[in-house]
């Protein structure tokens, strides 16, 4: 049985309410943190835990917190990034919907550690029903004395505000989120200065993902060192994976990052395999922005080793033969899925969500979508594939924010691993309209060169 830290109590009846959450041991981590620990000690525990940010980039959270500037007389802010808009990712929604108090508890501990008296939850507009859940949780926590003035007699004041976005993917980028929170157009800012120096209203700000902040609760409860023992290598603790696509049991799973990808897809404890006896063709292991992998490279690395569900193993081989953990949006494609169509869907998404601020992303994403649409509808040319490669190469790394990279990577990976499927679409335009390329050789064992 896998270790569950976040979702342990998710199925307790009525856990959404304060009374049940408290009865089940809720807010004890908060009491421990505020009464027995100093803010520095909390940051130290977090550093010891080695937890990496759960939003996608995987930056060590303890390190990020230690960067925050502490000028005299300037308020600091903590912002919870609940603008979970990455296609395939829905773990934060689950957490907020079922365990709102877990997030609130984590938020108060984090606010205490960072010295934030006004903390914000920026939630995406499409999660229309969740702000009510969160606000109810905030109200109940406040009634119980865990929020407001002089919390637990420590002299620490904290308020949490929920701010709804208006439905833009780009507002999940931390500086665009800050702009939007300030009431402006959600355009990413040019860094530096980083939010840790100048964030919301030019004040030092930390922006963290929902899951990251919720994980503060188990870290404080069990201590950083104990937390670091879970998992493997630099992938410590547990991670929520939102599995979707062609799976028997899609949903949100908590894993301790020691299981293999194969076990995650096929075991009954997790996704339970692929429906109707179909075979696995490809998978995006970490949300739509990360590179897609064919079945053979997903289950085994290029060196022939088993691939595990953790930060290091998933990125083994770099972009040439690996992918990324990302935000944990695990999208599985079976043999009936068309990678060209799938790439077009993603390209359309990024074109729609580009903020239009910098030229490579604004113009390049639209261009890629049009070319992919041509290929998909049987009007493609062989030169289009190289053109796509050239466009994505010139977007990647040349933009203000990572959306340009996120738009370029899926296209690059699809061409890198599924080039023959693209070519088949171009050479057989009529056939491509009525049937799919199928599994082809994408699950064949990889030839591993043996060195004597």
């Amino acid at each position, binding site marked *: 049985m896998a270790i569950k830290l976040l979702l342990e109590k998710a199925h307790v009846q009525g856990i959404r309410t304060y009374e049940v959450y408290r009865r089940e041991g809720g807010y004890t981590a908060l009491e421990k943190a505020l009464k027995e620990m100093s803010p520095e000690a909390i940051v130290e525990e977090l550093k010891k835990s080695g937890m990496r940010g759960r939003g996608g980039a995987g930056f060590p959270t303890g390190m990020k917190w230690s960067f925050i500037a502490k000028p005299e007389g300037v308020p600091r802010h903590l912002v919870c990034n609940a603008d979970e808009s990455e296609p395939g990712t829905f773990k934060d929604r689950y957490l907020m919907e079922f365990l709102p108090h877990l997030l609130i508890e984590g938020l108060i501990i984090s606010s205490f550690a960072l010295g934030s008296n006004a903390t914000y939850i920026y939630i995406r507009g499409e999660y229309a029903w969740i702000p009510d859940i969160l606000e109810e949780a905030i109200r109940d926590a406040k009634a119980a004395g865990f929020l407001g003035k002089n919390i637990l007699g420590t002299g620490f004041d904290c308020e949490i505000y929920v701010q709804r976005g208006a439905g833009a993917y780009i507002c999940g980028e931390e500086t665009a989120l800050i702009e939007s929170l300030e009431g402006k157009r959600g355009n990413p800012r040019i860094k530096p200065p980083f939010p840790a120096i100048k964030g919301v209203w030019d004040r030092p700000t930390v922006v963290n993902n929902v899951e990251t902040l919720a994980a503060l609760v188990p870290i404080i409860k069990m201590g950083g060192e104990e937390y670091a023992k879970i998992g493997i290598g630099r992938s410590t603790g547990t991670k929520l994976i939102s599995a979707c696509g062609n799976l028997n049991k899609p949903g949100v799973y908590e894993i301790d990052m020691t299981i293999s990808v194969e076990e995650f897809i096929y075991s009954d404890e997790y996704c339970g395999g692929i429906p109707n006896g179909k075979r696995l063709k490809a998978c995006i292991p970490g949300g739509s922005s990360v590179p897609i992998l064919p079945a053979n490279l997903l289950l085994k690395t290029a060196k022939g080793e088993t691939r595990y569900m953790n930060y290091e193993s998933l990125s083994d081989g770099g972009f040439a033969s690996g992918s990324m953990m990302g935000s944990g949006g695990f999208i599985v494609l079976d043999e009936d899925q068309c990678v060209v169509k799938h790439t077009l869907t993603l390209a359309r998404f990024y074109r729609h969500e580009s903020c239009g601020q*910098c030229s490579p992303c604004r113009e390049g994403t639209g261009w890629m979508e049009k070319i992919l649409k041509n290929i998909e509808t049987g009007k493609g040319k062989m030169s289009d594939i190289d053109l796509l490669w050239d466009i994505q190469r010139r977007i990647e790394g040349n933009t203000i924010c990572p959306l340009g990279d996120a738009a370029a990577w899926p296209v690059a990976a699809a061409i890198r691993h599924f080039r023959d499927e693209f070519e088949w679409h171009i050479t057989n335009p009529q056939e491509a309209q009525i049937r799919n390329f199928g599994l082809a050789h994408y699950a064949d064992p990889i030839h591993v060169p043996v060195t004597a």
Partner: protein
Amino acid sequence: MSEQQLFKVTIDNITIEVPAGTSILEAARKIGGEVAPPAMCFYSKLKGSGGKCRTCLVEVSKGSEKDPRPMPKLVASCRTTVMDGMEVKNITSPKVIDARAGVVEFLLLNHPLDCPICDQAGECHLQDLSYEHGKEGTRYEFQRRKFKKYDLGPYIQLHMTRCIMCFRCVYTADQLTENRVHGVLDRGDHAEIATFIEKSLDNDFIGNVIDVCPVGALTDKTFRFKNRVWFLKPMDAHRDCPKCSGKVTLWNRGEEVFRVTARKDEWGEVEDWICNECRFEKKHSSDWVIEGPREISRHSVISQGHYVHTVTPTETFKAVNDGRAPHLLLDIHTESDVNKPEIELSLINGPAHSNNFNSK
């Protein structure tokens, strides 16, 4: 103790000392010539501008004396400040040349390329940029994005189809006028500069958006289709204006004043903002005190044949290439008596004749 700390920065093998806080772009502009990266959205007089067009990307091959690691990505030189001992590669970096050609291609994707009927032609930054950094032809085979033309009040026309989304006009309205009524609507490749339901831009200083626009998206309605800029002769002039500095450039043909603009420096940026009255309503020579012809870069099409005060660009290639001069296949002056550098063609009255060169 020195009041201002000086940082040593090397751009394309040329070292210069600049005050701390200077951006790479501004340091490069101090060196001048080809070393200065092109800038489509950055405007030194507008706070917060820059970083968007990505044409000024440069490679930082050495971060600073303290931290010599190179920066992992190309950086926007207009928004990156110099560090002591920083080494920057602009035209000496193949990565930069390639990325810049890519940006030019992206910028031209949806640009209508209607230069023959565009009033900005001849003083258009996008023309210069694509001429200097772009490639021939495009690989784009789709319908270009189109918008309707809008009249923003009596003086300004907005032709969004030509816009490259540099945000300069938005910053200008924000920082120069009291009440900004235009901004960016929508997002991505369908974003547009717009007012709220075609509301007119009505403000004493709003005419400056025409000057800051790098392309022909915002044009002067009192000048539209009146003349090509290279047939006009720019003259510096001033008047006593209660609202602005009154320092302008008149664009004449004969005695007639075709248009009035602010004075632009060698980077295409205005020196002083001017008010609408000076720009749109004072169109007689008698309104102005003429100071003399405006200096225009010899490379500009506007300078064709008009000028005594031509500015010869400094040769940067030699400095960049460690002192090696560009390889000349043929020095025209050793082969021919015509084209003598000491003879100023513009001083010759009427067409040049062989007699003009027979000084022997």
